[in-house]
């Protein structure tokens, strides 16, 4: 697991209060990890803070799974 993936998963475990084992690449924030629409907004904000980037809204809307978040951040994190 990349350093970025580990940091992403740590945020998800912390914010959504889920077990680390549930945070697989395929897991959907809303369908599998119990997030509601406000939780997902908060997650995106936490990613922005952790990786010191700004994720545009239209991009943020496409990040719905753990894997998508990791991929996006691996491409964009500074």
């Amino acid at each position, binding site marked *: 697991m990349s350093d970025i993936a580990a940091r992403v998963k740590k945020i998800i475990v912390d*914010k*959504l*209060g889920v077990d680390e084992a549930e945070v697989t690449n395929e897991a959907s924030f809303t369908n599998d990890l119990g997030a509601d629409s*406000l*939780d997902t*907004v*908060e997650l995106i*904000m936490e990613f*922005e*803070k952790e990786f010191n980037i*700004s994720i545009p809204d239209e991009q943020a809307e496409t990040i719905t799974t753990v894997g998508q978040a990791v991929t996006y951040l691996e491409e964009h994190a500074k």
Partner: protein
Amino acid sequence: MQLKRIVVTGIGALTPLGNSTTEYWNNLRNGVSGADFITQFDASKFKTRFACEIKNFDPTDFIDRKEARKLDRFAQTAVVASDQAVQDAGITAENANMDRVGVVFASGIGGLITFQEEVTNFAKGDGTPRFNPFFIPKMILDIAAGHISMRHGFRGPNFSVVSACASSTNAMMEAFNLIRLGKADIIITGGSESVVKEAGVGGFNAMKALSERNDDPKTASRPYDKDRDGFVMGEAAGVLVFEELEHALKRGAKIYCEVAGAGATADAHHITAPHPEGLGAKNVMNQALEDAGMQPSDIDYINTHGTSTPLGDIAEVKAILDVFGEHAYKLNISSTKSMTGHCLGAAGVIEAIACIMSVQNDVVPPTINHFTDDPELDSKLNFTFHEAQHRTVNAALSNTFGFGGHNACMIFKKFSA
């Protein structure tokens, strides 16, 4: 129409004197002070460095960590105290129609801690808005009522009531009225307040409302003492279960007491100072007595607003003398704020709990911290100084007043079928 009778069937309390009704009441009757140095922020630069905080409260002992994070402290304490009250009352989907169980829950200020944190974060940034999506739903004052309903599935009337430090008494009055008009069978009511934070203490300090007796926090709240110098900020969540009498009897509920009557008035005088003759206070007590169908001589104990401010204590006592006449000298009067501090929007309900326990136990909790008589107060009145007093308490009256000139009053009496 015939108004229905209302009884109290459940109590929950998180207070500066303990995190259960029993602990709260035991410390009240034993005259314990809940004041100490502030732990929730570094108050070293503040004029007041102490408060009556809720102690040893970890929300995650009661609320899932993920959920707890989305609640301001005022809502966390509201949820936990209401869990206690609902459990105490034994309300279940089997013995109550959830469509007719409501929540009318107050706070004076709401999520000030959340507001302070979010706005501070924004101000530290470069102007780019990065507000947490839970900022608004954590802060808004009515959210505590919402959370209580969601936790238990109560689908009856649900809202908040605000009248500053009178808020929870006004909320109880709304609950009382809704049930007696037949709009609900049960209402979870009361209030919570948690503003022991920079913005809260600093704001009240700026008004010169708070005691600054930093060298002796435990004796700082001294209602009716000549040297009182302001109120001590308190933090609390108090919850009462109000229930229609027949409903309570039918399900075999434990009955603490009956809600006899209530009143609400305004001073129409000044934003913070009381009417000098206690006009609004006098009117509200008369209104509550009339609503209860009681005479002044039916009251045994008055739990005063008595915040330990120079003007407020005097105006309220004038009003009591006016309303009660000669009977005023036979009353027990006490300000339990001498022990709990002033819990603002939660003051009314935790003092209502003090009244209910007094009616139950025939014990009047004291006004502690009395050192010097105030020549402006009638010394023949029984302020229940220093120690609790035993007497039959058939009925107790609770006064609560708020900035804005709001006055609210509620009377509790022993239940007899």
